[in-house]
């Protein structure tokens, strides 16, 4: 991890610790929780896209798998929540491996459609076979660890952001390690990395599985926080939302995932006031963001920062 990243991570940590102390408004903390959940999923996709050059439109599938498996295990089989979260992640990553082996042979748009197909299949399965079908099911046990059950919004805020920070630390280390360099090589030129003797296929699969771990972890946390699940939240729409976060935040920088999650999660909240025309304004803002901040917010910010420092 570079020094700069460590400092930013430290500041973020401090900020997270003090935020619930300063802000007692549960509404804002709830938004913070959803930002954290979305940031986790977006982080996985950023590594996959920005560092391994692979696209996925199926993140909602893993997100849904994590949520449903963990909820079912804890509710129907009475497993302790942390264990069921763990098993959910394990199952999701297993499915990711099985999917990755044939899929990652595909390129560009073909890969996009294959992952999209996977996500939609999961969505349909949840709709047909999930408990409660399309109506969904409730009474999912809240998150509890060592006999302590989380109840307040502030506690969930800490829980989710602890995972975000852990995932961030892991991701930053991964990117800066040798694998990280190899990953970037894949993105730049696959041919070159083959000739350098880097086993791309294995690396691509690893990253794909990592992104599925982040997504299913986020899904499981969502399930135990909201305590109600229905398939509608795990459709293609969510995958595209995550993709939007990654692109707006900037795919070349892992911090973009958090920035993108903040923007895309908060934007509809701000637009609530516009009632009828909020979709219109939402579309307009997204279009303008993409047109005028092509590299994404974080890389743009860094660029400006560096210019300021040089002067």
């Amino acid at each position, binding site marked *: 991890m570079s020094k700069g990243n460590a400092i930013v991570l430290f500041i973020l940590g401090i900020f997270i610790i003090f935020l619930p102390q300063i802000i007692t408004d549960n509404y804002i903390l709830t938004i913070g929780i959803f930002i954290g959940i979305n940031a986790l999923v977006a982080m996985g996709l950023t590594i996959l896209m920005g560092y391994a050059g692979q696209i996925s439109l199926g993140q909602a599938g893993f997100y849904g798998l994590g949520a449903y498996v963990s909820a079912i295990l804890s509710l129907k089989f009475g497993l302790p929540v942390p264990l069921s979260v763990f098993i959910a992640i394990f199952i999701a990553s297993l499915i990711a491996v099985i999917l990755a082996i044939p899929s990652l042979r595909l390129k560009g748009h073909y890969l996009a459609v294959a992952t999209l197909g996977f996500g939609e299949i999961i969505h349909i399965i949840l709709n047909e076979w999930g408990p409660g079908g399309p109506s969904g099911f*409730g009474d999912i046990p809240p998150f509890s660890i060592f006999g302590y059950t989380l109840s307040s919004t502030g506690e969930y805020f800490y829980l989710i952001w602890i995972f975000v920070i852990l995932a961030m630390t892991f991701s930053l280390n991964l990117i800066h390690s040798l694998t990280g360099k190899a990953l970037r090589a894949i993105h730049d030129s696959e041919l070159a990395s083959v000739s350098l003797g880097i086993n791309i296929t294995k690396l691509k699969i690893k990253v794909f599985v990592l992104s599925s771990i982040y997504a299913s972890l986020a899904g499981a946390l969502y399930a135990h926080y909201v305590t109600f699940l229905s398939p509608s939240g795990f459709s293609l729409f969510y995958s595209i939302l995550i993709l939007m976060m990654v692109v707006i935040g900037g795919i070349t920088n892992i911090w973009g995932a958090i920035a993108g999650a903040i923007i895309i999660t908060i934007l509809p909240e701000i637009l609530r006031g516009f009632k009828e025309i909020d979709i219109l304004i939402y579309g307009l803002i997204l279009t303008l963001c993409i047109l005028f901040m092509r590299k994404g917010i974080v890389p743009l910010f860094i660029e400006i920062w560096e210019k300021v420092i040089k002067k």
Partner: protein
Amino acid sequence: MKNLVKAFLLIITIVTALIFTQKDSYCKEPYKIGAILSVTGAASFLGEPEKNTVLMLAEQINKTGGINGHPLEVIIEDSKSDETQAVLAAKKLIEKDKVLAIIGPSTTGESMAIIPIMTQAKTPLVSVAAGASITQPVQERYWIFKTAQYDTSAVEAIYNHMKNKGIKKVGIISITTAFGDAGRKALIEMAPKFGITVVADERYGPKDTDMTTQIVKIKSAGAQAIINWSVGPGQVIVTKNWHALKLAIPLYQSHGWGSKKNLELAGKAAEGVIAPLGRLVVWDKIPDKHPQKPILKKYVSDYESKYKSEPGTFGGHAYDAFMMVVEALKKVGPDKKKIRDYIETNIKNWPGTGGIFNMSSKDHCGLDMKAFEMVIVKNGDWEILK
């Protein structure tokens, strides 16, 4: 150019000033209630009339001096037909706006998602969605009520009608949403009670363009009638497909069929379609002495003159929810617990748009099969079947 900018800024300042000064014309503190409705997204056909209804009623109440002198402030949040958004909206209404009660959400899924929040915040919720699980088991739904009729009541009404007609085998076609799924489950579960066998159980997605395949399959399975359970464009497409195939078996629709818009869209294909509908849809055809008649008449004509469209059954659910909360507020004042208690114990023989409500500690919906009339489409209009 500079002047133009200045003029523009001036206009903005004036407009903002106007917006902010408009409020505060009352002396007493306003009563705040919240509404979470699917104004956009997949369930927007529910949220739209519900939102209009709530806005209209709030305006009417404030024009006549508010509730005991207090102006009523209704804060409407769009849940975008999404559970996560509904959760956020509920948190916002409770924490930030400090509302006394919440009306909505429009769909069963969204209602289920915010039930834990409402229970924890000890704030009454009057949902406008249909799912039985919203108010059952009732001891776990202390703070939760709903005004939409049970799906099972609509199923009962249909099966009763079929039993009298001698129909023994039915084919179900339903939409793959919570609404369709709840109806489908109720249809399958209750069939044996009426001596009816379900011979086909078909489904379609909310944005599907053609259901011929499913209908043909139902017919070939030997069904004597088709029951379609959906809301939105799907029910019109099914009607059109059924008509084109000339199957000679009747088509029943769910209680979601009750919109003139459907008759317009389906045209002559809708002739002969039967459905259990709330009296809101056929208000002009029920006898004058029926206790619901004056309420329905006022609501429908007010709505139509204001919005130039019909409110539909769903707008009515919001009307009932809103009126219950307002009546409670009027009687017991701004106390969440007392509002809840009032709705549970005092809404008895209470005529609303959806039926005559009888709330109790055992039933937080208070409607049964009697809330429906069996209605057939004839000459492009509704006709009540005896």
